[in-house]
């Protein structure tokens, strides 16, 4: 009983307290939101140990079954980082001193790995566009046209292409002067318009829906209707 009811009571109390004190600036309620978020940071500081335990246990079990170099490397780099971190903390008073071994590891291991994983997106965005932007349906066609126009509107090559189109138009319709037509950065103009009007409208609609859904979800959690996270 206490095992399932107590958590629900705590959630209800915490949630309601935050909602009510949102409107009360007077101490001690005014900074309650801030205070609770700091508390959350402190709690998650402890749960880092749970994560560490999970990761180490997983790879130790794997290693016990049979030796594999990758689990070993992972555990080795994990503990090396921890040792260097605490050593640097102790020796330089902060682990983030620039000449500490911990920062060396950060500079030459974490930064390049982070940046390169992030850079993979340049490739993936190309392959995803090629594969997904097919005019299968009317909606899919709109998706691909909007993407193409905005892409052209963002880079100088878009205006070169437009100049080509403009000269084509003015050869067919000599009445339209090339100069004036070429000056209009049509792709940039349309792309700005798409971003400002239809893009903005849909985003707003999604935001409003998501906000309502999130509020309903929060109220369900506070009232204890939504309780997947609490088991018997």
């Amino acid at each position, binding site marked *: 009983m206490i095992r399932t009811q107590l958590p629900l009571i705590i959630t209800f109390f915490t949630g309601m307290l935050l909602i009510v004190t949102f409107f009360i*600036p007077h101490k001690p309620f005014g900074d309650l939101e801030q205070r609770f978020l700091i508390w959350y940071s402190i709690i998650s500081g402890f749960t880092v140990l749970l994560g560490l335990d999970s990761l180490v246990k997983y790879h130790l079990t794997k290693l016990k079954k049979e030796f594999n170099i990758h689990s070993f490397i992972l555990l080795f780099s994990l503990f090396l980082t921890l040792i260097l971190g605490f050593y640097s903390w102790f020796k330089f008073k902060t682990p983030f001193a620039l000449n500490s071994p911990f920062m060396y590891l950060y500079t030459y291991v974490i930064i390049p790995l982070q940046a390169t994983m992030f850079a993979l997106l340049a490739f993936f965005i190309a392959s995803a566009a090629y594969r997904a932007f097919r005019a299968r349906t009317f909606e899919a066609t709109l998706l691909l046209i909007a993407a193409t126009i905005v892409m052209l509107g963002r880079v100088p090559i878009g205006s070169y292409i437009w100049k080509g189109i403009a000269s084509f138009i003015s050869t067919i319709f000599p009445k339209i002067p090339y100069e004036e037509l070429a000056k209009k950065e049509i792709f940039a103009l349309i792309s700005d318009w798409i971003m400002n009007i239809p893009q903005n409208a849909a985003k707003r609609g*999604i935001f409003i829906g*998501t906000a309502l*859904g999130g509020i309903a979800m929060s109220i*369900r959690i506070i009232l204890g209707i939504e309780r997947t996270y609490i088991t018997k």
Partner: protein
Amino acid sequence: MYFFFLFSLLQFNYFEYVKSYDTPSDEGGSISLEWQIKEEFISEENPIKFFEIYRSEKKEGIFENVGFVLSQYNYYEDKGLKDNKDYYYQIWAIREKDTLKSEIIGPVISRAQWFNKNRFNVLVITIILFIVFLYYIEKARKGERLFIRKISGLDAIDDAVGRATEMGRPILFSFGLGFITDVVTIAALSILSKIAKKAAEYGTRLIIPNYDPIVMTAAQETVKEAYLEAGRPDLYREGDITYLTSDQFGYAAGCDGIIMREKPGAIFWQGYFFAESLILAETGHAVGAIQIAGTTAITQLPFFIAACDYTLIGEEMFAASCYLKPEPQMLGSLKGEDFLKAIILVILIISAIIATLSIVFKNFYFLNNLYELIKNIFTIK
């Protein structure tokens, strides 16, 4: 003569006004200042660079510089003060060539308030929302039947789990970078519960790499419970629900590795995602998995739409738990959401009509005032 004397005294006063007052709707410790410099002291050749704010605890005491603002502002909030204590202020306008000082104003006292007037509209809307939700939940509890339309991404869950089973491949589920304090993570937990139950029925392995340890523990509890409900607690393996790392791209690298080696037949990306979304989804596609994504992160939706088979967009994520677990109360709150949407639609349409009419018929001040009132309600102060 007398007039001239008065005038020269006034000329000493460079400021149109200088006001100081307790900052309203705050937790105390703060005084607000407003001022306006007289027009004749604003010139092109000797422009104001910025205003400096000086403060003292005694009128004849030493004034100390407490801050400055650029010349285009005429408002300053002095913070970190003691409540119920007298303060005096002086504003200096620092010009290119000289400095103009205002008269000393005060005493002024700072206090804390019990209600934040700036949030009055938020309070009203919060109360309305609570009433609507409670009403519909209560109505549903009494047994009213409610319709809910098809959400194709959710119907596909069973097929995806089934297909992974047929192929003899595991299922991968990820919460992305969401924390437990993001409500979307709780919505994802509900979806996970459904998937875990199906996986337990079919006896298919379920792998969940995690970014946040607290979310990991919640996932372990949820899956364990789902396996128990499906009558297969023997299949539950805690080693499949592990923590990876709390580094955004380290998590992506780890997930990519798991996808490549375990070759899951079905992948669920449910929760809050950032730029790593496409790295994950493209890798999932490369191994030929059925992918069902769902997120409220609006910036990442385009990438999931491009790379995944089904995507739950924003609010559909939250509707999912009602859809998957059609308890009356859940459906009631969904009905409440829809009722609120209808109200919003009405507000948008009516205010558009009023606003348009108030421009067409400029003389009807009533329309104009009404439009201003509606706009005022939906403004954050």
